[in-house]
Each structure stands twice: as C-alpha cells, then as structure tokens.
C-alpha cells in the first residue's frame, strides 16, 4: 500500500535521482561485463597474436577451439585436462572427508584438544601459504613424489593434506543444526557415528555440496603449487599451468586465441558451479558470523 502510493506520487527530484542511479548501474555493468564479452569474442578471433590493431576481431572462426582440443604436440591440452581431472577427483574425495570430519568433531564433540586445535588453526592461517611451499617440495622429494607420474600423487597430497584447517564454514553450518535432534537419536540408541552419517550429513546437503565443489575446483585454478612441483615435466602439467604457459613469450603469438578459448571452456563449468553454490556460500558466511 505504502509502496503503491510512493510510485504514483514520485516527485520530479526522485525521478531524476532514479534515472541517474540506473544510468550509473548501466555504466558499471558495462565495465564489469565488457572484459568478459571481449575474451569470449577473442576466443573466436580469426587473426592470431595477442595484440591487434582493432578492439573487436575482424573475422570469426572455430579453429581456436579445434586447435586447443586436438593439438597434442606443443601444448597438450587434452592431456592437461585429464591430469587435472584425475588430481581433482582424488583430492576432492580426501578434502571433503577431512573438512567434514574436522567440522563435525569440533561442532559436536567435546574433547581436551578442541580449543587448542582451533587456536592452532588460526595461528597457522597467519603464515603466508607460500612459506611452506618450498619445504613441502623438499619433503615430497624425500618421499619420492617429485618425478614422473608420481608428481600427481604429490599434487593430490599438497591440495588435500592440510584441508583440515579449513573447517570454519562447515562448522558454522553444523552449529546451526539443533542439538536436540542428536540427543533424541542418542536416546534411541544411535552411536555418534550414526548421528554423523545418518542425521547430520543428510541435514547438511548444502554444505556438503559446497565442500565437494570448492575442493573440486581448487586444482583447476591453482597454478603456483603445480608450477613448483611440475617444473619442466610437461607431461604432468595441469590446465592452469597450461593456460599460464600459453601467455609466455615463446607461445603467446601462436596460442593467445587458444588461451582465450581455453579460458572460456574452463570458466563455463566453474561459473555454473559457482552460480549454483553462491547461496550456500552466503548462508555459510552469515551462519559463521552469527555463530
């Protein structure tokens, strides 16, 4: 009712303000969308090279995608795709188990090591992640995971071993599930394990999906650890190193438009996953903040 009244009796001043606001939003939206449109157009560009005389492509072709998916000699993109897929499936399984286990223990169980663990996680989080990178490399080398196809195992370990520190969002979510549900189940004779697997997990589908997806995406978007571990072993490259390599001096002229094609191909599934899980993220955030 109030709304209706306001709409009908907009003062001229408010009309102008509204017009300005929408114009501003349009300009901003253009700034945010334009680079994305540009990269999509570039992926279909017929002329090679990173730099062209015109902002928009002169001709369009599908060849960039064809070359990216079929050329196996210089930068073997299909192989990189397979490497990354294998790594992310394994590391996703391990990370999901680690994150959910730790989050459940900290949320529901009470034990002496609980507080120290949470404090320790906070302190470890203040060290720059790259500080451990060199040392991790030496440790993996001592274990023999830095040569040939065992690099994959090394990468899986690097991506999943420390995920037990990233429990905050899941714990925040578990905290919001009423404890009375657990207590009722325990009264009926359920063990803690049964409460975890039969009650908490089914009730936490959003956060389980969120955890699975974030840990699945991680190997696709990390290139620093992958670069340090793979060094020159081009057989073991992941997609992110491949894309990064396409922009280096020796490849950029031939591969720039293919890079754009690769970027589009990688972004589509990740964008879809992101749009799907964005609400869980916001929920987890506000849950953790409130808790």
């Amino acid at each position, binding site marked *: 009712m109030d709304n209706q009244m306001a709409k009908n009796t907009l003062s001229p001043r408010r009309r102008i303000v509204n017009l300005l606001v929408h114009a*501003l939003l349009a300009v901003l939206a253009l700034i945010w969308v334009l680079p994305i449109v*540009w990269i999509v157009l570039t992926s279909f560009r017929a002329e090679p090279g990173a730099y062209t005389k015109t902002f928009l492509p002169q001709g369009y072709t599908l060849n960039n995608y064809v070359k990216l998916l079929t050329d196996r000699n210089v930068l073997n993109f299909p192989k990189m795709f397979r490497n990354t897929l294998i790594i992310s499936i394994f590391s996703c399984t391990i990370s999901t188990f680690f994150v959910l286990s730790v989050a459940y223990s900290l949320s529901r*169980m009470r034990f002496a090591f609980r507080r120290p663990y949470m404090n320790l996680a906070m302190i*470890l989080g203040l060290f*720059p992640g790259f*500080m451990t990178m060199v040392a991790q490399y030496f440790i993996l080398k001592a274990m023999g995971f830095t040569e040939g196809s065992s690099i994959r195992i090394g990468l899986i370990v690097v991506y999943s071993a420390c995920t037990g520190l990233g429990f905050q969002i899941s714990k925040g979510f578990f905290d919001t599930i009423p404890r009375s549900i657990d207590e009722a189940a325990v009264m009926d004779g359920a063990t803690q394990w049964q409460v975890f697997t039969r009650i908490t997990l089914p009730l936490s589908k959003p956060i389980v999906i969120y955890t699975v997806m974030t840990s699945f995406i991680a190997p696709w978007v990390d290139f620093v650890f992958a670069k340090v571990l793979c060094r020159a072993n081009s057989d073991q490259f992941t997609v992110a190193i491949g894309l990064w390599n396409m922009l280096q001096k020796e490849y950029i002229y031939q591969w*720039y438009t293919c890079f754009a094609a690769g970027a589009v191909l990688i*972004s589509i599934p990740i964008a879809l996953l992101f749009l799907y899980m964005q609400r869980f993220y*916001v929920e987890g955030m506000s849950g953790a903040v409130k808790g």
Partner: protein
Amino acid sequence: MNEDRITVSNALRRGDLFTRVSAVLMGAGMLGHRQIVKGALVLLVEVAFWAYMATTGFHSLGMMPSLGTEAQGKVWNEAKQIFEYSTGDNSQQILLAGVITCFAIAGLVVLWVLQLRHSYALQRLIEEGESVPTIKDDVKSLFDGNLHVTLMTLPCLGILVFNVVPLVYMISMAFTTYSKEGEHLILFDWDGLNQFARVLNMNGNIGRQFWHVLAWTVIWAIFATFLNYILGMALAMVINRKDTKAKGFWRFCFVLSVAVPQFVTLMIMNIMLQPSGAVNVLLQNLGLITEPIPFWTNAMLARVTIIVINLWVGIPYTMLQVTGILQNIPAELYEAAKMDGAGPVRIFFKITLPYMLFVTMPYLIASFVGNINNFNVIYLLSGGGPTRVGDTAGQTDLLVTWLYKLTIDQQYYNLGAVIGIMTFVILTVITLVTYRNSSSYKNEEAFM
C-alpha cells in the same frame, strides 16, 4: 595435590610393577592389565622408534650443530679416465632429517605420557574391581564417544606432516646461511640472527627493499580491503534501493565476473593493459590518447592500476556477501532515525556502517589478512614489476610475492624464511590489535 588424580607423577609413585615398568618398556602396563592388543601396539611403536633412532635418528641429531662439513669431492681417476665424485654432506637434507627426528622424539614423549597415565588408570580400575574395557569396547567407542579420534587422526596427521613440519623446517632456515649468495646451496651453517639484522637494517640494500615492500604491502592491504568493502557495500545498497528496477539483472551482471576463475581474469587484464593491449588500442582508436599508457612500467601507475583492477575483482564479491546482512538490519532503527529527521548520509554513518562493522568484523580481518598474503593479484598482474636495477623486489611486490621470488627464483632461502616470519609477526600484531579493539570483541552480546 589431589592424590586420586591420574597424572604421570602419581603413576610413577603409586603405580604397581606393570605401571612402573611401562615408564621404560612402553605398553607393559597395558599388557599387564589385560589390554594385550593395545599394549602390543604401543610396544611396537617404541621398538620402531628406537630402531629409527639407532639407524638414522642419533646420526641426524649429531649432525645438527654443524649441518655437515664435507664438501662433494671430485677426483680424477687415471685408470678409468673419468672424474669420480665422492658424496659430500647435504646440509638441507641434514636439517630436514634433524627436524623430523625432533618431531619423532616429541611424538614419543606424548605417547609415553599418554600410555603411562592409561596404565595407571587401568590399574585403578582393577583395584576398584571394575571391568577393564576389551579391545572390542575400545573399537566400539571409536565410533561413539571417541568418534573425534577416528575422524580427526588423519586430518591432523596431514596438517602435521604437510604444514607444521614444513613450517618449522622453513623457520629454522631463517637462522642459517642457506642461500645462493656465497654459494651456500649445498653446504651451509648456522647463522644466528644475522639475516634478521640484514632485513631490518634500513641502510643496507636488502633492508631498504624490505621497508619499501612492507610500506607498499600495508598501503595495498588497507586500500584493497576498505575500498572493496565500502564500494561493494555501496553497490549492494544501490541495487537494494526500493526504487531500483530489475535488481536480479544488475546482480547477475556483477556476479558473472566473480564466476570466472580469478587467475583467468587477472591474466586477461594483464594482457589487456599492455602497451599494445586492448585498452590502449580502444583509447587510441577513440582518439583520447596518442601514446599508449604505460600501465605496468610506471611504478605509481602500476600501483594504482593494481588497486583499481582489484576493485573490479573484489566489489562484486563484497556485494554478494553483504547483501544478506544489509537486509537483516532491523527496520525500526531506520524508522526511528527518520523520525528524528536524519538524512540518508547521517543514517549511513550512524546506523548502517556501525551495524555492518559490528557484524562483519571477523570477515574484514580475514580479508585484510588475505590481502596482505594476496599472491595471485600481484604475481599475475604486474609480476611485482617494475623492478629497479640491482633489486630483487619490484616496486609493486608484496611481502609474499617477494618471498616467492627470493626462494623460487633467486634461491635465497634464508632471506625468504626471514620475510615469511616477519609477515607472520606483522599479521599477528595487526589481527590481535584490531580484534581486541573491535566492538564485536568488547561487547559480545549484541549490537547497540
């Protein structure tokens, strides 16, 4: 001192034969108190530990003070007509083995305390005539009352081996001469606090770079965190306005950019802003400029560009996160303010901002820490450049990217480790100070 408590000293003073023997022969207490499987396992661990110590452990500990002395030898073998190499010491491996041995000893001490207390507890159970849990009971409890042990053992092991050990190892490097400088890559020595002095000394070359990088890191983190926060909130509020049409469409436009992987966006931005990249081409075609703008080669311009691009990356993110919280602000607060005749600006500064700061303080601190350690943005956009001749740190390098360059590119491992420790110290101070002064810490109850 409570005499009934299960402590190590009580176990040693009041323990029976089995309990006391387990101070030397670990697991004996359990073996003697009807817990055969557990006792045998603990005993096995102790045997394995001493076997490790005898074969390599004591040797690595003994090598720790010197970190190895023997250089790799090269001798011409006249008969075979080849150079023969003798294996020399490798300080890096010696240091790693030493650190691992220290962790093994610490682990055994923990196990020793736990098993001693457990033996004493078992002894007391038997004395009081209660039944001792069988191995079946123990396994069962691992899925019930002790589920946390089952769930957290592997994650903790992962963190210990791939986070804590590497961290300690890296920290120990800060006190050595492990560096390409002076050819100390294979053999190096303990160096005390010399590297710290070098980094902190404002007159030296490294020290001058450190203070420059530190200043830029802090400026960057402040700009990146607060500009993103304020502008992202402003955007969310503009879209949330009652009179804004097509809210979903606007949100979608901005969220689209968050959905593209960050490293892809950043690499594209880097190319677009090159002298002959798309942005300069566009501006030249429009006739706005005649010479390309040197986005990455002018230090000041590179810094501004990085902050602006980070806004492009970060604003939609903030918008996403604060939209829900903004809608949670109690409407009565706004109505009361309007009744009192407060204008929109006053309402923002007196109600919206304080409320948001209260709710999102932990998020703000986390994002400040994240920005201090923001590797991707700098590394992919400017690569730390432009770099002055003779410097290892570029004009836009953060402490983390400098750390990366020092260790991976330059192999100055000791300096890299010092930089890492300094980053940690700075972050700890900033986090503690802001957190303790924030209203969410002072008043945990509620807003207002």
